[in-house]
């Protein structure tokens, strides 16, 4: 069932990647390293859990659904909740001050909202890159 497995190991708890050591599958235990993204990339969003911000974003863009954000999930970097930002090819961590809900779907919605706010802000690294290398 979608949302219950990732990279060869079962997801038994929503906090599994915060509390565990990240070595879940047989292969991970064999090599002593965690492999890949720490969430189910195939999990499709539950639209009943949209946040007001995301509804406004969809309306602004003229989209009827989350569009590219359907692929954005709350991931986990070194035991910390984080979101992968494709524009900087790196993880952006969720600060401790933001409370996490008890289910992955709500966490994914928070991840989408945080990512949009970060990508569209002046402090995003892409702004500096653009100023330095923009050709036209």
């Amino acid at each position, binding site marked *: *069932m*979608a*949302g219950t497995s990732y*990279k*060869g190991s079962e997801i038994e708890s929503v906090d599994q990647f915060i509390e565990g050591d990240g070595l879940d599958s047989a*292969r991970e235990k*064999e*090599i*002593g*390293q*965690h*492999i890949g993204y720490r969430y189910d*990339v*195939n999990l*499709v969003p*539950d*639209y009943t859990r949209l946040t007001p*911000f995301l509804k*406004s*974003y969809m309306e*602004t*863009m*003229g*989209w*009827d*659904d989350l*569009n*590219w954000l*359907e*692929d954005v999930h709350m991931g986990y*970097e*070194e035991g910390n909740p984080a*979101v992968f*930002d*494709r524009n*900087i*090819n*790196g*993880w*952006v*961590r*969720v*600060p401790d*001050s*933001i409370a996490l809900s008890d289910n992955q779907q709500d966490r994914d919605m928070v991840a989408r909202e*945080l990512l*949009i*706010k*970060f*990508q*569209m*802000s*002046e*402090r*995003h*690294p*892409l*702004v500096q890159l*653009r100023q330095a290398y923009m050709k036209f």
Partner: protein
Amino acid sequence: MAGLSHEERARDMGLTTEQLTGRTQQVFFEPEEAENFTYPWAPEVDFNKRTEVDADAMTTTEVNSKIRALMKEGHGSIVIRNPRGMHGLGVGILSRLNLIFEGSLGYFAVGLIDGPNVRISGRVGWSCAENMMAGTVLIEKNAGSTFGAAIRGGDLVCRGSVGSRTGIDMKGGTIIVGGDTGMLSGFMMQRGRMVVCGNAGKDLGDSMYDGTIYIGGEIKSLGVDAVPAELTDLDRAWLTRKLTLYGLLPEQGVDRFQKIVAGKQLWNYDNLEPLEKKLIL
């Protein structure tokens, strides 16, 4: 050696056990970040401000430059008439926009886009919307090969049929085909969703690493490491919503769709020769 831990064995063999946990940059979200919906450099456009461009006597560069100039003027809906199958039209648009092409486009149409909603009333050539990041692209007729090559996000929809290698190397997003798709569709797919309402050619999902393929018709053959999976209620709900959005929901619903995923046998390196691997898989 038997009594040694994995770390000790690796060290004795001259290997390190350095943790490779990704390219962390220790960047944190700001809880009080301003609520912007578009990139800081994106032009302010109004969807209600509409204009038309006759591309009959224009070159590709002139048309693309004209689109950018109109966006800077605040036009949020742009209609391009007489595109005459030109290649590379509508590429590199990185903000919200309604872009309508009245006619057919050539190769690499609307590639590298991040946000716009594009409607194409005719056909498109090879590699339509390659490397698309976000937005929606709707093609009313047929599309060529490598449709949505390396797409990373957004909805790419063709109401007709498409050629071979659809969604090759796709890394996210959704590709929807109203008709049939050719051979090697979903080749080396890494993420995202592909929905084909009609039939799929041979070697579907060959060497796919992740992602999901839904096929409404017949599959000529599955590729290496592509395996059937159970269609869940979440899949059905998503398929129904997405296909309804583009007017492609079959009368009989989505229950007949087959779900194809990665068999996950290609995730780890091994010492097998390619021929040995093929025999095993």
